[in-house]
């Protein structure tokens, strides 16, 4: 049995998660969110513990459990909290937990980009719009929750559909991922240094191993860098010699990511720029348009006005 978890146990655990999610969704009268959250966490815990028992030698870092529980718990609150502002703030917590997971996966640049772009920019836009698109509480209407925020639409059907999707996804994935071979298993992380001779030069200079006049030697247009042996041929006024790399000379995440981005996907950057430009234009055009308020909404406003006048007159 080379599966990571027994399928029946997986499906039962996911059913428990689904039950918890369904219970936690907001309803008109009661919404036992704590019970739902505990049920969902118990289901997830069962699945994770069984997975951990099956593969004791390849367990993720303990931080993985902390970050994923915080992230999923906050995601649950995003979905269930009746006030949109709190949903947005819980979403920031989800993002911070995801950043922790990204760090564990040694994607440092993306982790910090996520905090800056998502938590710093996109979520602030959301918060602005939530503030803009909420009616200020007037005297007659105390600040209450809207009916459309407190009652979920078809909670059972949505949960069943979503958890069936997860069951299919994870069932397939767990059956196969034990047999999956990593693609670049034999390749050294520093193989990129072959294409970055100036980086090697700078690293050697910073370590004081070569002086300013020396350069990495080239033969047939290729830099003489031996990544496996961690050394490079340098040429200078005194002739050529091999210099070993210092301990800390290696490709860092940002360098590798930037190299991949600009070397393998230059066209996509242009397209991303066009998408951002179009979105900006679209947002400007949309938000400048004059909107006529619907007759119904006008009538509703007038009614509210009348009622508040009446209340003042009565008092």
């Amino acid at each position, binding site marked *: 049995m080379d599966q990571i978890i027994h399928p029946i146990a997986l499906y039962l655990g996911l059913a428990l998660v689904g039950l918890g999610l369904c219970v936690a969704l907001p309803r008109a009268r009661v919404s036992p969110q704590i019970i739902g959250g505990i049920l969902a966490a118990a289901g997830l815990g069962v699945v*994770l513990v069984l*997975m951990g028992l*099956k*593969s004791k030698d*390849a367990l993720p*870092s303990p931080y993985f459990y902390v970050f994923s529980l915080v*992230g*999923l718990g906050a*995601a*649950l609150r*995003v*979905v269930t909290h009746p006030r*949109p502002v709190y949903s947005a703030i819980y979403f920031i917590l*989800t993002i911070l937990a995801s950043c922790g*997971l990204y760090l564990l*996966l*040694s*994607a440092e640049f*993306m982790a910090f980009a996520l905090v800056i*772009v*998502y938590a710093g920019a*996109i979520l602030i*836009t*959301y918060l602005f*719009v939530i503030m*803009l*698109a909420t*009616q200020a509480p007037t005297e007659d209407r105390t600040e209450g929750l809207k009916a*459309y*925020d407190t009652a*979920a*639409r078809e909670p059972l*059907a949505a949960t069943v559909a*979503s*958890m069936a999707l*997860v069951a299919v996804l994870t069932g397939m*994935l767990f059956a196969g*991922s034990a047999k*999956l071979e*990593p693609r*670049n*298993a034999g390749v050294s*992380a*520093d193989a990129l240094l072959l294409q970055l001779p100036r980086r090697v030069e700078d690293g050697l200079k910073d370590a004081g191993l070569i002086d300013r006049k020396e350069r990495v030697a080239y033969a047939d247009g290729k830099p003489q860098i031996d990544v496996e042996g961690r050394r490079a041929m340098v040429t200078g006024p005194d002739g050529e010699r091999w210099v070993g790399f210092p301990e800390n000379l*290696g490709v860092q*995440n940002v360098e590798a990511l930037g190299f991949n981005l600009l070397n*393998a*996907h230059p066209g996509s950057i242009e397209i*991303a720029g066009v998408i*951002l430009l179009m*979105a*900006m234009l*679209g*947002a400007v055009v*949309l938000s400048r*348009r004059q*909107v006529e*308020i*619907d007759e119904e909404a006008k009538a*509703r406003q007038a009614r509210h006005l009348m009622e508040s006048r009446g209340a003042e007159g009565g008092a």
Partner: protein
Amino acid sequence: MGADLIVLAQQGFPTPMGGATLAHYLLVSAIMFAIGLIGFLTRRNLIVMFLCTELMFQAGGLALIAFSRFHLEHSGQTFVIFVLTVAAAEAAMALALVVLLFRKRESLDADEWTEMKG
């Protein structure tokens, strides 16, 4: 553990990751996606619905980063950059539309717009 993290920060990719560890991350990603999907289907507030799509983007990004780490290949992380770009563009457009709809009906209820047929 702390020393491990420092080594992680210095190098592109250290040791390979096991398939079981990958499965843990993919499970979290799948459940996060499901929570986002449930939220999108059940919530009736337009802004929260779009917030739930961001949650689904987030889950997709986590799966991409996990695969990037598993295959020791940076293309997955590069793709997340583009996911972020598209998410930003989507947020800008969607929120402009939401503000427009709100000004017309004075309500964020998605059910107000059921007669909109395209």
